[in-house]
């Protein structure tokens, strides 16, 4: 799960990380009111999850009331298109108005989960304000890392080394930077983050250390113990079909092709997409029905797949383990009765209760159903029908 920048700023501020004064607004009038309260130069920023806001013109430095009003009106009235959004762009519903900082130097600071070391790692760099992946590719030595002990967390000497790597020698500034890092680590641990990033962290010309942009991703598996995050979640940024699938305990991800996929298990679901592509087709979605799927859940899966107008054919690939083939067969029959199949549905079933499933499908005699003997056969059949 992701949250918006203004929400990330709130979490950082609560953890004692200084941020520039800010406000979240939803209309140009609220934006100008915020400008009036702050006085001086402000920055207006679109609150969307996609990156590339600056280049797209959705981050604007404004010095007057009129500028703020115009910038807010533009951002709320247009869809933002960037490298990360695709050509259709994303709608903007919320803006951040923040006091502009007088920047002397920009830094990078983040905590992420390091999978291979199996612990969180704190990363800092003097090259702030640019994408860290870019820095990592161009000049990996410019990133300094300290790994956190799984049980003990950030130690004093580690914070000192990180601050030293940032080149902050002034005693007060070094202290302030260490406080920022401790706050960032606290947020990471307290809220079960997978990423907590301040970019840039800045030093102002008066020597203050401030966070002026923040990004956070959270571990979906930990949301059950994070009520505050659940409240922060902005569903308007989610694909509505993905939200609907989640409610039915299905994992669905919309893609651009025209062959709908219904599979059990994430690895097999990915492999099914792969084999479709290999035979010249394009998957319309990733869909994992999971292990303990009910007939109703599987029927909902068919509804979701068939609601996508791009879908010209469906591949059902089930290797029954915990999930039972006959449950899927019953769902297929229910879906055929309820929505009716207007496209060919290639079905490959193997594993638990497969004999009963085949019998059920045979008796139902659904004309659009095409049985397949194995994975390759299934991919060939669905691609032949669609491509």
């Amino acid at each position: 799960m992701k949250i918006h920048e203004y929400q990330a700023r709130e979490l950082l501020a609560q953890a004692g990380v200084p941020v520039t004064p800010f406000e979240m607004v939803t209309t140009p009038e609220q934006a100008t009111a915020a400008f009036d309260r702050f006085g001086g130069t402000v920055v207006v920023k679109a609150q969307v999850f996609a990156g590339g806001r600056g280049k797209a013109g959705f981050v604007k430095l404004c010095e007057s009331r009129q500028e703020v009003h115009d910038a807010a009106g533009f951002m709320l009235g247009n869809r933002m298109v960037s490298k990360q959004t695709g050509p259709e762009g994303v709608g903007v519903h919320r803006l951040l108005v923040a006091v502009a900082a007088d920047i002397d130097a920009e830094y990078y600071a983040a905590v992420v989960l390091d999978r291979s070391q199996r612990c969180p790692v704190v990363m800092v760099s003097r090259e702030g304000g640019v994408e860290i992946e870019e820095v990592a590719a161009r000049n990996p030595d410019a990133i300094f890392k300290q790994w956190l002990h799984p049980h003990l967390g950030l130690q004093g000497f580690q914070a000192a080394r990180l601050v030293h790597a940032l080149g902050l020698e002034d005693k007060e500034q070094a202290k302030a930077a260490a406080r920022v890092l401790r706050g960032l680590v606290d947020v990471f641990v307290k809220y079960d983050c997978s990423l907590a990033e301040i970019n840039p962290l800045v030093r102002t010309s008066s020597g203050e250390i401030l966070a002026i942009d923040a990004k956070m991703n959270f571990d979906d598996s930990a949301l059950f113990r994070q009520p505050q995050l659940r409240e922060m979640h902005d569903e308007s940024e989610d694909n509505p079909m993905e939200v609907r699938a989640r409610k039915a305990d299905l994992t669905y991800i919309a893609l651009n092709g025209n062959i709908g996929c219904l599979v059990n298990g994430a690895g097999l679901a990915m492999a099914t997409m792969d084999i479709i592509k290999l035979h010249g087709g394009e998957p319309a979605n990733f869909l994992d029905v999971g292990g303990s799927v009910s007939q109703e859940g599987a029927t909902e899966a068919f509804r979701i797949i068939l609601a996508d107008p791009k879908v010209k054919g469906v591949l059902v690939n089930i290797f029954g383990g915990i999930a039972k083939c006959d449950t899927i067969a019953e769902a297929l029959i229910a879906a055929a009765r309820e929505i009716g199949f207007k496209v060919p549905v290639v079905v490959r079933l193997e594993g638990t209760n497969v004999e009963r499933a085949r019998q059920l499908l045979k008796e139902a005699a659904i004309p659009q159903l095409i049985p397949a003997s194995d994975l390759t056969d299934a991919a060939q059949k669905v691609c032949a029908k669609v491509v």
Partner: protein
Amino acid sequence: MTQEFRLRTGLQPAGRLGRAIQGQATMSILVNKDTKVVCQGITGKAGAFHAAQCIEYGTQIVAGVTPGKGGSRSEHGVPIFNCCHDAVIATGADVAMIFVPPAFAADAAMEAADAGVSLVVLITEGIPALDMVRARKYLDDKGARLIGPNCPGIITPGECKIGIMPGYIHRPVQDGSRGVGIISRSGTLTYEAVWQCTTRNISQTTCVGIGGDPVKGLNFIELLDLFEQDEETDAIIMIGEIGGTDEEQAAFHVRHHVSKPVVGFIAGQTAPPGKRMGHAGAIISGGEGTAASKIAALKEAGIHVARSPGEIGETLASVL
């Protein structure tokens, strides 16, 4: 509990010094017909169902753990204990199989390690990653190995099934013959690979699902070593997927330390970046973890990469 204390008090679990753990010449890896299993969460819906399947397959499930139900018996007739320590002391269980809900699963794994089991098989899906960070370190310090979480478990066909995989799709090694060892980050895709072997009359020595989470226990490298040492194993299948760099590291290891033929497959060649493809660990981020990078690394290490998930068995047959 230290090793010394365990020896002194006679609390040494049976498998701790078992030959399979010692990395000597073995038949199958990690688990076999002598393995004694304690099942945490045996009275829950999933735990009860799968424990029954394991017992039916021939696995020795010697104890169950459900706090508050100690002294009773499960529906399968397995004695229930209030805590893992009681179960290990009373039965000599050396492997724990865990079906505890996500919020309590990491704690259950640590309890099992503290009770002295040598191997923890953690089936539960959806455990917070930071819980696993802490638990994995705890298990390492206790000297207990971990399989999972979010995994199908481990099976030595014909001897011992600890997990949720359908038993009948596997083919036990016949007397005097040999087989393939399978390591996989996926559940059902493993079944697919197993089935493709079985339908070609290729037996499996042991199949291990290492799980789809970002922080886990045994990884490709440790298992590649165990299969390399296992006399019965002729070849190894490793099934990876997008996300992280485990496969790249494993490929490097294969190049220098594995002499047996290895067949590989990487799922997620068509997955878009930035999207979590079902498994918590299956996400391409910051240009890292793509299928292309993994496949290139595997090929460079001389691993036979199946182009299609439908050709894993065929690729293996061609190298045997």
